[in-house]
């Protein structure tokens, strides 16, 4: 009974949020003098095969980004720094893989390890600062984002290879590329091979969090740091480890694209996924299944909005508003649902106990 209601509550909130976002977006489009109907017709048109491929590719990266944020969120850590972590990690990995120190497929593995390690170290700084100096990870990761951006810019402009107007890292050898797979015609593009990383990490996330001692400690710390300490969790160590795990996942974020299509760090690098990931993590309630839906939804909106420019005079930026409103609406809705459920559960407990034992005292649990 309560289980069913919980599932219901978990679904009601995102539904309400999506409806609210649709209404507000329609309003914004209408206010700007365009037709809301036209907007939704274009957005909801069945995607072309090529767009399907893009949605899967993009969703995998958004998923990884959201997973990275979710690891932090589950223990009340706000890793706002996914953006900086994956940028730095992508750059370092691109340099290392581009140098082709080891042959072929081994180079891919090396690249992934380097990316994870770089992300982990960069996020670990925030973890260490939090544990040893009490610095809020929100602030330090924001600062580290900016520092990573500047650092990568500096390295690229100093050591990068000139390519047209911009600079990039060494292009990786053919043998270190990960082949994709073509669900449709060749011209519709490939689903990158490393999209599978998203799946692997999602399953690992679920297992570790729900079935292992480490996961229990992590969740316990997130629910109540004080209770976790009293239970013997070394919160300091947990914070550093969780931040590093979060950073390591963030490090993997751009790898599907890097090994599947970009082959070097340069103009092909896709920035901004870190913040999208935070939004999707919130949307998906920090659960892998929810995050998956969120990632697909966001990728869908992004890809479909490309048509707006071609087929109408509506700016495709409007979907950013849609996405932002979805996030805000969903957290509000979750909060309202959570309070309702807590109250309902308390009522249920009291009712049950009164029925059981009519003389039971009525006690306010503070």
């Amino acid at each position, binding site marked *: 009974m*309560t289980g069913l209601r919980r599932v219901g509550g978990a679904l009601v909130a995102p539904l309400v949020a999506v409806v609210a976002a649709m209404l507000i977006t329609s309003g914004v489009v209408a206010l700007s003098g365009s037709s809301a109907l036209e907007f939704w017709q274009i957005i909801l048109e069945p995607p072309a095969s090529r767009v399907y491929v893009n949605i899967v590719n993009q969703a995998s990266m958004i998923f990884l980004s959201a997973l990275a944020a979710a690891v932090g969120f589950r223990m009340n850590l706000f890793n706002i720094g996914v953006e900086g972590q994956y940028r730095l990690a992508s750059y370092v990995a691109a340099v290392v893989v581009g140098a082709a120190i080891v042959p072929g497929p081994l180079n891919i593995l090396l690249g992934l390890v380097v990316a994870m390690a770089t992300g982990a170290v960069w996020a670990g700084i925030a973890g260490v600062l939090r544990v040893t100096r009490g610095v809020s990870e929100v602030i330090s990761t924001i600062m580290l984002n900016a520092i990573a951006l500047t650092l990568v810019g500096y390295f690229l402009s100093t050591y990068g290879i000139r390519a047209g107007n911009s600079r990039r890292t060494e292009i990786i050898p053919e043998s270190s590329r990960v082949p994709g797979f073509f669900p449709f015609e060749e011209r519709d593009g490939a689903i990158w091979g490393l999209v599978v990383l998203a799946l692997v990490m999602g399953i690992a996330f679920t297992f570790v969090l729900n079935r292992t*001692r480490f996961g229990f400690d992590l969740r*316990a710390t997130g629910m109540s740091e004080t209770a976790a300490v009293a239970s*013997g969790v070394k919160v300091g160590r947990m914070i550093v480890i969780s931040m590093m795990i979060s950073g390591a996942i963030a490090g993997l974020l751009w790898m599907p694209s890097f090994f599947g299509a970009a082959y070097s760090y340069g103009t092909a690098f896709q920035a901004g996924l870190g913040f999208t990931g935070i939004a999707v993590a919130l949307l998906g309630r920090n659960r892998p299944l929810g995050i998956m839906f969120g990632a697909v939804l966001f990728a869908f909106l992004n890809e479909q909005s490309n048509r707006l420019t071609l087929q109408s005079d509506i700016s495709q930026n409007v979907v950013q508003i849609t996405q932002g409103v979805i996030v805000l609406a969903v957290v509000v809705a979750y909060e309202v649902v959570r309070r309702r459920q807590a109250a309902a559960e308390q009522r249920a*407990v009291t009712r049950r106990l009164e029925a059981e034992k009519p003389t039971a005292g009525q006690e*306010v649990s503070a």
Partner: protein
Amino acid sequence: MSAMAAETAATDAIRVRGVGKRFPGVIANHDVDIDIRTGTVHALIGENGAGKSTLMKILYGVQKPDEGTLTVNGREVSFASPMDAISEGIGMVFQHFMLADNLTVLENVVLGAEKLHGIGDKARDEINRISKTYGFGLDPDELVEDLGVGERQRVEILKVLYRGAKIIILDEPTAVLVPQEVDALFDNLRELKNEGHTILFISHKLDEVLDIADDITVMRRGTTVGAAKPEGTTKHQLAELMVGSELPSPETGESTVTEHTLLEVRDLTLHDEFGRALLSDIDLTIHKGEVLGIAGVEGNGQAELVETIMGMRKPSAGTVAVDGKDITNWDTRDRRGAGIGYIPEDRHRHGLLLDAPLWENRILGFQDRPPAVKGILIDRAAARADAERIVSQYDVRTPGIDTNARALSGGNQQKLIVGREMSGEPVLLIAAHPTRGVDVGAQAAIWEHIKKARRQGLAVLLISADLDELIGLSDRIEVILRGRLVGEFDPQSVTPQDLGSAMTGAHDEEAS
């Protein structure tokens, strides 16, 4: 005498008729009737959870009643917020002080009443005047964080007087005070009464009530169940009204103390980040089958002592040994593994994951051993089965083990914690305020569990603010004052007055 005089007054200061208040799942108040005569001290007594605090919030406009009427000085009123109550001349001193630490006394006092005398020199003069009149001795420009407990309470009373309140509600004002401070407070209250103020005094300490009150109203299970005059009423009669039956009495029975030392603390010293001593040279020994009680005014190092023994704080010096093993450098998890059970002072902060189901709470603190855990994995089935066992053995009233801990009442949450800690077969139990904020039934059950464990050879370190509980359960009582152990007492012969003196440091030399 004064009671007779007040009886002739035309109207009561406050008259409550048929007031009721429901929260989701709880009836906090129903059919409450009280008459408070102008210029008297009126005591409202009742057990924890009897609905006193809710009633207070209704009288002060924090909560709105669902039914019934309030009459103040003969006029029926309806409060939408504390502002309305204040404008009717009602002031409230909360049990947990409502002060902003980082603001000065002046800022705390004038907040919300800036219209009276501004926020500058005129306000400062007024505060100095009131402080002088009642002998409060407060400096308006001192930061509240630098004040002691008694001073903070006086700031709270000053706040109320500054607003010109004639009716003052005090919610368990003595809970945080030592006996000597209580006397000083009562002198202040009598002074206020002589000046024509009406005082509503909430407590569950019967001696105090009989000492200070002109009238007494008793609450039980959310409603008023009787009224009394202190003259011709005994503690026993009041207690019966409060609990509906005999008071549960903590009686340990014969001694089970053995020679086998289980906890040995030597020269334990703890400093805070600024180098101030929180604990100084603590020496403690507890034997198998012994309950050692720690008495002290809250904030004298009890919490720090517990947290240091649990490994949640690192001592600056000294050693802790359990059953002969030096555990000074062990972390909390290893200490728990060595057989220390822990009933924390604040169960919401330290004992439970409120938003996790009961069976997950069963795992908390036992993440490193069966039945909850197998290797690095959580054993869900075993954890659930053992949670079921605790629920039935310790009479935890819940619809099931999938209910979130938050939904349970305080007493049932505490029973779950006791059951969980006992299931680790501890050799040493650290129980900090084990019956605080729980109903009478749960209190009796928890006492019974502690006694039973003691008979089976458990060593217990008991921290409590309830002196009756300490005296009743302990084999030995140590008094802690400003981070030092200042005296040892035999509960068979000690009186609350002796303890009170030691706890305040009035009889330092005698005690040691």
